[in-house]
């Protein structure tokens, strides 16, 4: 069984930087193990720190965490639809638009972390039960702007989480 997607399995832009951050291995296991590490870092963040932006026009930490959860919900759906053979014309995703409409800053950091935790549990269970055939199915966003296999969706979720964890460590937790 393939433990990582081949480059042809996803659009180089914007997904390659995420996929390359993820180690080889069964993706459901990676998603569960990696989140244990992420959660340990996030649990130490105070509410005061979570409201901070590292620059005025950047998202707050709360908005970043809410964004991670939105991305996971979007790719959770994309993986499901694609695995069921329904990935031919998937809707787009607009990160700034979603984050603005969600108003994450009114929620507590703790509450946002709880939400990502329950979404991750559902994502892990979804990926645990995909067969190799399902993982190999392809999905396309819109008229072909982006494409990915089901396996690549899992790697994108995991890599996107690692990408933001590194940014948060560098830019927010050093403030």
């Amino acid at each position, binding site marked *: 069984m393939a433990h990582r997607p081949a480059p042809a399995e996803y659009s180089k832009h914007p997904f390659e930087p995420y996929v390359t951050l993820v180690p080889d291995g069964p993706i459901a296991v990676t998603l569960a193990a990696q989140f244990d590490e992420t959660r340990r870092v996030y649990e130490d963040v105070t509410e005061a720190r979570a409201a901070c932006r590292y620059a005025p026009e950047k998202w707050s930490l709360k908005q970043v965490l809410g964004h991670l959860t939105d991305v996971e919900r979007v790719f959770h759906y994309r993986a499901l639809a694609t695995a069921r053979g329904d990935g031919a014309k998937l809707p787009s995703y607009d990160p700034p638009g*979603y984050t603005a*409409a969600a108003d994450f800053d009114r929620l507590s950091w703790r509450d946002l972390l709880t939400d990502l935790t329950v979404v991750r549990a559902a994502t892990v269970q979804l990926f645990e039960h995909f067969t190799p055939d399902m993982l190999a199915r392809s999905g396309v966003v819109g008229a072909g702007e982006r494409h990915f296999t089901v396996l690549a969706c899992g790697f994108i979720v995991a890599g996107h989480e690692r990408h933001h964890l590194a940014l948060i460590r560098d830019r927010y937790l050093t403030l």
Partner: protein
Amino acid sequence: MSHRPQPTEYAPYYDNYIRLVPDAPIAATLVRQFGETESFYRRISERQAGERYAPGKWTIKQVIGHMMDTERVFAYRALAISRRHGDELPSFEQDDYVAAANFDQRSWRDLVDEFASVRAASVGLFERLPDDALDRRGIAAGNEITVRACGFICAGHELYHVVSLKDRYRLD
């Protein structure tokens, strides 16, 4: 004030589900209802779960798998519309989804455990929406729908199938 969606918030077909749902905040309904339906699911045996009530019909495992697929799709629609997503959202071919899945190869217990996680994620979404987000409208499967209606369909669709399981599969 009513918590229920108005008939203008969804296509008439969905009334089959929405009318089954009590007039209460939808996140609380989704939690409370699963407290009841989960204990019903847990009383179903592995052997019963592989049965069909008639040839050509879904097994009980396929029914719960279909309930999860539906909830994931409607939670996604609720997410996208609550975030003011402008794209028309695609339709959902339930029979194709079940045929493409492998629910019969899985254990009943495992399916029920997964449904509990899917429900927790739906509750997480509906609990944290901004105040006015339930009223937001989008287009899914060619019809206008609100975020509120998506939540009521999640709850009502589950109730609809639980009633049908109890009746047709003679479970209680």
